[in-house]
């Protein structure tokens, strides 16, 4: 069992991962900074005001990337959790745990920016619209995952148990989404649906794209960074950790 594991996931061995992540993270971080600057420049300087919404639509450049990121990161987290659970790959377990806080942060930012966008466009910060509601529940799923992780002292058991939770959640996300969409269409009138501008101008689209990439790079950098720390703590008795921290101390 153990030997197979080492062969299959040679590159995922903790010391290799630790070194590689240490080398890559700064590059992703730098790239993220550059892309954020470029994206904001396009979004705020080059892109003209919207004829309907005025300038408030510029919230889109943070709102939509964070929305996408929060959903994508959840799936990614579940995938890593599954790999960790089935093949007992420590680095995958660590990655799953490291993704959760960043994913939760993006979910929160999506809610926050959406709420602030809602006030000028809909006249209220919050309606119980399907998309809004399911995003809120996504945030709760992240929080539940993190709470379970924190509640179990033994790290191995915590990783396994929260992996189950992540998988149960990922099965449920589409179900939740559709049930909520469906729930919402029942009552007529009162709710307002999210309507995007009919045809997005190219500049806006480019800005959105660049900002999305920026968020991606940021997420990768931060997650790798956190995963390294997590790995150090988990493996703190291992020889490779002693080698690497001995130099620093």
């Amino acid at each position, binding site marked *: 069992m153990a030997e197979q594991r080492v062969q299959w996931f040679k590159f995922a061995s903790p010391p290799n991962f630790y070194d590689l992540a240490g080398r890559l993270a700064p590059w992703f971080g730098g790239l993220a900074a550059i892309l954020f600057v470029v994206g904001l420049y396009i979004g705020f300087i080059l892109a003209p005001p919207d004829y309907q919404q005025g300038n408030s639509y510029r919230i889109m450049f943070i709102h939509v990337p964070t929305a996408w990121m929060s959903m994508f990161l959840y799936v990614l987290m579940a995938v890593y959790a599954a790999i960790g659970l089935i093949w007992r790959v420590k680095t995958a377990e660590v990655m799953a745990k490291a993704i959760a806080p960043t994913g939760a942060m993006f979910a929160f930012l999506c809610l926050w920016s959406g709420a602030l966008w809602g006030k000028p466009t809909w006249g209220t910060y919050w309606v119980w619209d399907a998309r809004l509601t399911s995003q809120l529940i996504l945030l709760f799923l992240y929080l539940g995952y993190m709470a379970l992780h924190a509640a179990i002292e033994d790290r191995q058991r915590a990783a396994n148990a929260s992996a189950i939770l992540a998988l149960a959640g990922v099965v449920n996300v589409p179900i939740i989404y559709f049930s909520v969409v469906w729930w919402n269409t029942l009552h007529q009138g009162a709710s307002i649906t999210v309507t995007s501008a009919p045809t997005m101008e190219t500049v806006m689209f480019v800005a959105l794209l660049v900002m999305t990439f920026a968020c991606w790079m940021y997420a990768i950098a931060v997650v790798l*960074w956190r995963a390294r720390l997590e790995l150090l703590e988990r493996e703190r008795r291992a020889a490779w950790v002693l080698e690497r921290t001995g130099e620093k101390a």
Partner: protein
Amino acid sequence: MIEFLAMGGHAPYVWGSYGVALLAMVVEMVLLRQRRKAVNRRLARLARLNGEEGGATSPDV
């Protein structure tokens, strides 16, 4: 410039969104930095303890 900052009357919303996003990312990075320091301290202490005991007997009595 002022006009740009005013965002056509939507300044609080627009800058509120971006400000909090920036804040969240900065806070996340600061927390990570603090945690790295804590981990390093802990590992250093562990290394010191291992050195002292020489792995001879368990600390338990």
